[in-house]
């Protein structure tokens, strides 16, 4: 069964890679399997881990049922009305609930973690010293770079003031920082994408063909 599985996996892998040569029926077939299997996978996992384990066992078959959870199940069922165009508008209720809950949670956590605490961690003595009180020049430079980068970056994202004079210069410096940031992201993203392919090649060459260890 294990060997059979490896062959299946290898054939599916090659089927998808055939797209790199050109779009073809084999790729389309593997893509269709991909869409079907993923949707099925998610549905099964969400059914057993949530609907069964949490709701059914927690609220229906439990000795000490949590009746509040029926509220969630009702909202969930209302979501499914979207499948029927005539009553589909009811699905806006559970949607409204999710949107509201997310908005409420995000409003504070983003403000606190990504705005206030990031501001706080930029506020520090620029001159970095070690325990003995000697100045650490590289760290001091780094702190200064962060200070300048954050301030000018924020200036760039100011929309209600024209970018002229000192403000304009600051905004321009801000874009330089943004570009270096994007460059770093770019390099890292390339690294990630290559790793994905290395993983697949490792599977084909070692698990399937046994060319390498």
């Amino acid at each position, binding site marked *: 069964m294990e060997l059979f599985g490896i062959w299946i996996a290898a054939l599916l892998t090659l089927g998808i890679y055939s797209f790199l040569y050109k779009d073809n029926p084999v790729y389309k077939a593997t893509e269709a399997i991909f869409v079907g299997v993923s949707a099925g996978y998610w549905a099964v996992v969400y059914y057993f881990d949530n609907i069964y384990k949490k709701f059914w066992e927690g609220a229906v078959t439990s000795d000490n049922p949590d009746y509040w959870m029926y509220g969630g199940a009702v909202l969930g069922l209302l979501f499914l009305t979207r499948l029927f165009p005539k009553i589909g508008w009811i699905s806006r209720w559970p*949607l409204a609930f999710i949107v509201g809950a997310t908005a409420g949670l995000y409003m504070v956590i983003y403000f606190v973690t990504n*705005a206030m605490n990031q501001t706080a961690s930029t506020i520090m003595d620029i001159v970095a010293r070690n325990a003995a009180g000697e100045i650490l020049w590289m760290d001091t430079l780094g702190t200064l770079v962060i200070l300048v980068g954050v301030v000018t970056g924020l*200036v760039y994202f100011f929309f209600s003031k024209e970018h002229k004079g000192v403000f304009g210069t600051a905004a321009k410096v801000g874009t330089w920082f943004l570009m270096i940031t994007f460059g770093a992201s770019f390099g890292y993203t390339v690294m990630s994408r290559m790793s994905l392919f290395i993983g697949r090649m490792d599977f084909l060459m070692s698990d399937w063909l046994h060319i390498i260890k």
Partner: protein
Amino acid sequence: MKIQVQKNELDIVKRLVLSASVLFLIHSEASFSQESAALTSNVTDTVLMTAPQPPISVTIKDLPNDRGSAVHISWELSPDDNGSGKVTGYIISRSESQSGPFEVVGDAVRGANEFSDNQTDDSKQFYYKVEAFFEYLNAAGEKARLVSVSTPGGPVQSVPQWFNANRKWAMLWLLVVAASIIFFIEKAKKGDQIYVRKIAGIDAVDEAVGRATEMGKKIYFVPGIQDMNDVQTIAGIAILGRVARLAAEYDTWLEVPVSKAMVMATARESMKEAYTSVGRPDAFHEAQVHYLTDDQFGYAAAIDGMVVREKPATIFYMGAFFAESLILAETGNSVGAIQIAGTAQPAQLPFFVAACDYTLIGEELFAASAYLSREPRQLGSLKGQDVGKAIFLLAIIIGVLLATFHIGDILFLFKVTN
């Protein structure tokens, strides 16, 4: 089977090494090495078999800033918990009366000096005891413990709090920014002008549309792969309105391939309105906005094919983009199209910046849509957010100056810890 043999052999070797090392460490009082991290020591030397001393000055109090049902216990380490390995950990137990019986509510590893009992009853008082213990394997090879003699402390009763005092400054700033957002929305609704600065990518729209007209080629507008519930898609559609108006004026074919049915409906509406507003409702065809597929890569591949076949002069990417961004931008670039992109997905921005002529970065996308639509909600929020940015910007500048010249500290105003 092979593994089994190895395992047994190793087991023996490991035990020998462990007992030797633990004995050595205990005798020499050397600092306990993290490397030989044996939880259970194998000790046969009876001289060492004394219970560790209990932790000192145990503090028991209601856990602050919570919804009740929790008590916080902290202590100073047992004098034996000094890296000698004589303390394996601490046991925390509680009782409703000072004399017991005590039930264990948790444990802590050596070196730890606090514990939260999260299973209390707000209507009852509890006494707590923190004991240090030493765990070893006895002659029969079973785990055994030597436990310190500790006196119980308390009583304490857990209570829920009405306000989380750690978060007072967060609340203040949140209210200030929220108030300014609402204030500016109201102001914009009354018709007050709210200034939005120029945005390079948007200024280039005219030129880009003009170029397509000159060349007699199509314009593509790609609104991303998210549905209408994503603010980026909404911002993208607002920009589409502006592009459509220009396309209608110049009489250039604007094509909008979409990946979600809802987006298709909204985009059609918005384009029809734009064509009507410049007096050319007849020039709009529903076929200009068409659905391809919901699937991420399927959508990218389909646009790819269209771009290669039709070689549009100008392509706009405005909305939420993910990994498909680079496939789209690369293909558009390879046919020599002018490309203007805008997204708030930080990981995709590099690809747009490197492969497109103009890129609206993050918030610029929203600013552009506010700027073009002149909608009070959007304009007001943009201005309100700027107030927030101003607060944080000033805080950083003032804070750094104060800290660098050792004048004062305003960190507490912004640092939110649990």
